[in-house]
């Protein structure tokens, strides 16, 4: 059975759901009838209240996986019955199991997961459950939870270290990291883990280092504490829980490496979507090449366009600039006409134009306004990739444009320059 991931991470997809892993989760919990292969599904799930609609997908994925299991899985069934009486005795165990089941089941239950584990209490319950069940059957329990999602999102909100990169990472990972759920082994290498964690922490850069290190320490302390429901030990909220998968190295080095690789593969996926023509390409090196080419081409395009604009300018020079700038000036931070036309380019959903904000201006329609209007109109019709013409928008802002243009010819250029100069970059928060 091939659970071990490939070394080069190449085939890794973020939203995979390892069907082989699910039965691992299911089996130790003991709710899945081992003997009942096929499609017998009804029995475990009524035991998990509140999750009735999860039954079908979980069952389908459980059973084929179960059938494929090697024989060493079946000892679970023999182990379990003696252990079974232990489970219901834990208060709230069933709810926790239910929650955990939804974590492991599918990436589609993302919303459910994120909703259900959005607070510390549930996280701690998960941890305590892990420890409780871990103590009863050793290292057989491989839970998958999206603790890492929530820890990351929580810390993204609270932690002051976060820069934009981390904020992005958190946003991304909370959506896509459900596939890469891992939990760190709690009882095997507690003591070893601490020593190794300190070594491992030096080789990783960034926040994740401190996170995993803290997490290992925390796990170590939890193991020594042994009480399982100790809320104080549980996640301070800013580290990743990583658990070794079955059949894989449980070295803390490799665990951390795996987390890192998961992150990188996730980012590569995004980039794959973004960079055109990269959907078929797999492999980090080739993807990097494509990205580099794309960035270079975009930069060259910027240069070229600026050259073109520079070439155009001497004829109009300040004409367009003053017009546009006065548009924006009149807009006063609200939606102006040029803004309207740039909206059209990118999004089918447009900001509502606020014609009321534009000063009424002179009522006369001047001739030069017409070609400009046509100029703006043609980009509108030509460049609309979303096939959403939205004629009302263009007509409203044509009117705005008329008003604005009439204003433009009336106002003093030097005054506008002053006003422009005094408007600092409000978009850039320092």
């Amino acid at each position, binding site marked *: 059975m091939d659970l071990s991931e490939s070394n080069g991470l190449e085939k890794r997809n973020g939203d995979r759901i390892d069907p082989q892993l699910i039965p691992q989760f299911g089996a130790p919990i003991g709710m899945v009838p081992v003997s009942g292969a096929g499609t017998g599904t009804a029995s475990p799930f009524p035991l998990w209240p509140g999750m009735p609609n999860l039954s079908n997908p979980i069952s389908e994925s459980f059973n084929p996986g179960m059938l494929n299991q090697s024989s060493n899985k079946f000892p679970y069934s023999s182990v379990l019955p003696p252990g079974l009486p232990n489970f219901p005795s834990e208060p709230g165990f069933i709810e926790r199991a239910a929650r955990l089941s939804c974590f492991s089941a599918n990436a589609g239950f993302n919303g459910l997961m994120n909703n259900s584990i959005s607070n510390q209490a549930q996280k701690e319950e998960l941890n305590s459950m892990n420890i409780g069940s871990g103590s009863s059957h050793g290292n057989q329990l491989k839970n998958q939870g999206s603790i890492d999602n929530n820890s990351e999102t929580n810390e993204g909100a609270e932690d002051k270290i976060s820069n934009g990169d981390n904020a992005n*990472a958190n946003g991304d990972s909370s959506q896509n990291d459900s596939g890469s759920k891992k939990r760190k082994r709690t009882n095997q290498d507690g003591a070893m883990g601490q020593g190794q964690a300190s070594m491992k922490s030096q080789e990783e850069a960034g926040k994740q280092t401190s996170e995993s290190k803290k997490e290992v320490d925390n796990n170590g302390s939890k193991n020594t504490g042994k009480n399982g429901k100790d809320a104080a030990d549980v996640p301070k909220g800013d580290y990743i829980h990583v658990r070794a998968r079955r059949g894989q190295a449980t070295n803390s080095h490799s665990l951390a490496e795996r987390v890192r690789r998961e992150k990188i593969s996730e980012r590569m996926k995004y980039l794959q979507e973004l960079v055109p023509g990269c959907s078929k390409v797999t492999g980090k090196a080739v993807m990097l090449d494509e990205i580099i080419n794309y960035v270079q081409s975009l930069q060259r395009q910027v240069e070229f366009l600026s050259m073109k604009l520079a070439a155009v300018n001497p004829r109009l020079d300040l004409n367009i600039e003053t017009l546009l700038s006065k548009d924006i000036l009149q807009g006063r931070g609200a939606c102006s006409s040029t803004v309207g036309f740039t909206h059209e380019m990118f999004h089918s959903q447009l900001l509502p134009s606020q014609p009321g904000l534009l000063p009424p201006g002179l009522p006369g329609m001047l001739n030069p306004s017409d070609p400009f209007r046509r*100029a703006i109109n043609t980009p509108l019709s030509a460049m609309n990739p979303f096939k959403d013409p939205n004629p009302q928008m263009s007509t409203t802002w044509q009117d705005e444009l008329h008003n604005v243009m009439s204003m433009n010819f009336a106002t003093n250029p030097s005054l506008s320059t002053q006003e422009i100069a005094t408007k600092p970059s409000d978009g850039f928060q320092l």
Partner: protein
Amino acid sequence: MHVTKEFKKKTFLKQLLLGLHVSNSISNPISIQQRKNSIKLSADLAMAFARGRTHWTHALITKLGQKEENKSTLKGILGRRYEILMARYSCPLLYQKVQRRKKSVTSYRFSYNAQKRRSSALKGSCVRVSPSVVARNLENRRTKVLKRLVPGGEFLNGSSLLSEALDYVISLKAQVDMMKSLWRATQVSSSSNVELVPSAPLQKKDASCTIANSEE
């Protein structure tokens, strides 16, 4: 991740025109090169401002600010914030970080070369390099190139580099699109200003439309 693109477009345009104005008012650029540079500067700055606060935007602004010819324009645009920005982001700590990382890279290189030498010594003249090694080598080389491309990328590693690159690509795309539309707007209006036969501007418009369509 990029929720409010609308605001960014608006800020971009605003900043772009502001920058153009400032550069025009400060020094009337004569040659086309100068004009192009000022336009590019304003566009880059506008993109950085529109994106907000990320690693690469800071790095970009700092990089732009350190060139002599840009300083006056930047001062005009940023006003009071210029000093703050420059003071904050040109601190020598950054350079030390770079030095440290360079050392680590060279040490890794050294060990890798030593390994290769050892392996070649054992196996005779031909160096058998395993595919993973080749892949890693390629990857490293390309990562270095990417680091050079993305502003501020030299200080980043691995997944953070990739996410910054992602962000940068998106903003670059937006910038290119905005400039394209600006260019089209100027082109059409310029053609109409030339006062040709009434049908001619329409033809020119159609030409630009078709160009646009073929480009997209």
